[in-house]
């Protein structure tokens, strides 16, 4: 049994971390009243920007500096996600476009952007490598704690992850603290609940919406970065990231807009994602496809469950999805 957990849990966590980044980022965004359905696209952009940065650095230098090897992809990823966040804000906050449609357009754009550069980067840059396999950069990202190996099962289950995985947990805790315990968080929640009231109270609604959405986008983007450099060992393959962005958005509802719940919920969903690999199906390949429904069915199930248990304190921010125009009051 312990043997099973040692094999299962690290993989579940590996799958769960991108979801955690995505859902924490999206929670922060939604707290400001912006429903950003572009998270799936932002995570692609975050991933591919990191890949572009690392690719240019790896092909550009002979000896790689571990610090730069991490800093360059990280910076590129954050920059790319930030730009996506700014674009979303500009369209929905400043130009008051419909949030759902803008989000879908961003997903189309982001997934296309990722797949295009993932597929054409080698040709565009004229490098003579067969495929994008950033094993060196990935090595820096996936570096684990040196003493994890020596601690037996405890080390394997709790300590065998790279720094981004722990960063995800720290970010989730920090987001939870900021939202619930600080003045800034209080203002942010006010903006999400009732922008007109917040505006009357002297809170700069536009600035809060921009800041929360952009920071949220950057956090989400890290999910893409983690996926490529840690989970996929630096190999970009088109559409590999798949539907995780949407699951991350669904997780926000499941966690009732509390980033702290996202920590365990993401890992649980990561487990569902890989469950089909651990169920013996023999030669029956078809039934494996049915098992792969697990995360989606679970999402549906939890959506229904949260809607039936309709408590007053478990509601989305009241202005979620609506754009705010001061003169419309």
């Amino acid at each position: 049994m312990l043997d099973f957990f040692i094999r299962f849990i690290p993989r579940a966590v590996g799958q769960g971390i991108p979801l955690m980044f995505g859902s924490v980022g999206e929670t922060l965004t939604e707290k400001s009243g912006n429903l950003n359905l572009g998270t799936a696209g932002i995570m692609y952009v975050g991933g591919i920007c990191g890949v572009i940065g690392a690719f240019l650095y790896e092909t550009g230098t002979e000896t790689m500096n571990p610090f730069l090897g991490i800093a360059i992809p990280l910076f590129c990823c954050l920059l790319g996600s930030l730009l996506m966040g700014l674009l979303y804000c500009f369209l929905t906050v400043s130009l008051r476009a419909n949030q759902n449609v803008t989000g879908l357009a961003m997903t189309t754009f982001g997934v296309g952007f990722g797949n295009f550069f993932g597929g054409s980067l080698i040709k565009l840059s004229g490098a003579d490598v067969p495929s994008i396999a950033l094993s060196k950069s990935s090595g820096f990202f996936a570096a684990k704690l040196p003493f994890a190996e020596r601690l037996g099962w405890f080390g394997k289950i709790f300590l065998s992850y790279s720094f981004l995985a722990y960063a995800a947990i720290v970010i989730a805790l920090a987001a939870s603290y900021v939202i619930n315990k600080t003045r800034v968080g209080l203002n942010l929640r006010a903006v999400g609940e009732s922008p007109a009231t917040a505006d009357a109270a002297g809170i700069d609604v536009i600035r809060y919406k921009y800041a929360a959405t952009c920071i949220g986008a950057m956090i989400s983007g890290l999910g893409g970065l983690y996926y490529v450099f840690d989970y996929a060992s630096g190999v970009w393959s088109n559409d590999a990231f798949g539907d995780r962005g949407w699951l991350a958005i669904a997780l926000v509802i499941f966690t009732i807009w509390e980033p702290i719940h996202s920590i365990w919920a993401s890992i649980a969903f990561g487990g569902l994602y890989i469950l089909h690999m651990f169920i013996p199906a023999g030669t029956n390949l078809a039934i494996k496809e049915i098992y792969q429904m697990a995360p989606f069915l679970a999402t549906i199930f939890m959506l229904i469950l949260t809607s039936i248990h309709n408590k007053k304190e478990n509601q989305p921010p009241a202005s979620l999805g609506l754009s705010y125009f001061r003169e419309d009051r």
Partner: protein
Amino acid sequence: MRNRGVHFHISRRNDISWRKAWGIRCAVMALAFLLCGLITMAATGLNPIKVYAAMIDGNFGTSRRFWMLLQNMAVLLSISLALVPAFRMRFWNLGGDGQALMGALGAAACMILIGDKVPSFVLILIMAVASIVCGMVWAAIPAWFKAKFGTNETLFTLMMNYVAIQLVAFFVIVWEMPKGSGKIGIINQSTQAGWFPQIGGNKYLLNILIALLITVGVYIYMRYSKQGYELAVVGESGSTARYVGIKIQHVIIRTMMLSGALCGITGLLLVGGTDHTLTTTIVSGRGFTGVMVAWLAKFNPFVMILTTFLLVFLKGGSSEITTIFGLNQSFGDIITGVLLFFILGCDFFLNYTISMSKSGKEAA
């Protein structure tokens, strides 16, 4: 207000003349195309005029390409139209993909299981019923929960897409031909049972006619029927609907069933009319693109023909460019995305005016 001399003041437009609105739209579109050309130039190093020439050639170059354009338009248009009633009700049906996929599954199942038992004409009718029912059921499930408990429909319908994909993946393996290939080849290749008949020697004409029929049908339904009016009231204001005695739950489920049924027909068009096979990617994200098609056209079925053309043209054109330059197919998505951003932003200038006042005294 800070005093900087120049002040921008944004206010809502009361109404805008027809000519001015289209002027702004055209200007924004021209700008968008210009930017897309520049992006293409940066990616391929080709001069933009050649890029546009290649795009036009990719869509209109040969009569086969032109028919492909029309055929792709027919499929995208029908799935977009399917979403209109739901969106009018403010029900975010992002499950168009899954509903169409289920329709495709229903149609393919009929072709495979009873393809050689009934005459082709009867088979097509059975396929139509099967795909409509499949699409309908797939849409009715989230609708029921939305009506009953207010379950978030955006994500529910979205997740139903993935469940549908896995279900199709399951049946693809069950029905794989030949065994072990992991895919269903062309179904009934020799007998052509269940294939749509060719009209005047053109195999896509029936698809196009059906799409046009749906366009007119949806227009009439939304504009002149009692049901169309009811769902618009539910969309505008739930309390008004309740006040005038509209059964909201009933309307939600009925509208979504209609939406799902039309998506199912799209699946039928794909399996019976064009592809004659079943894959998990047969709908290829048209359910999402359809959301944007419908939104950009402000849900007007006839304007949707134009927006469909625009998106299909871009897709066809950019796929031509990517083939010429050996680039990745996803280039089209980037161009589409950029264009959509422009059109989304454009609405602002139709609904609001920006006026500038030089002296800041008043505001300060």
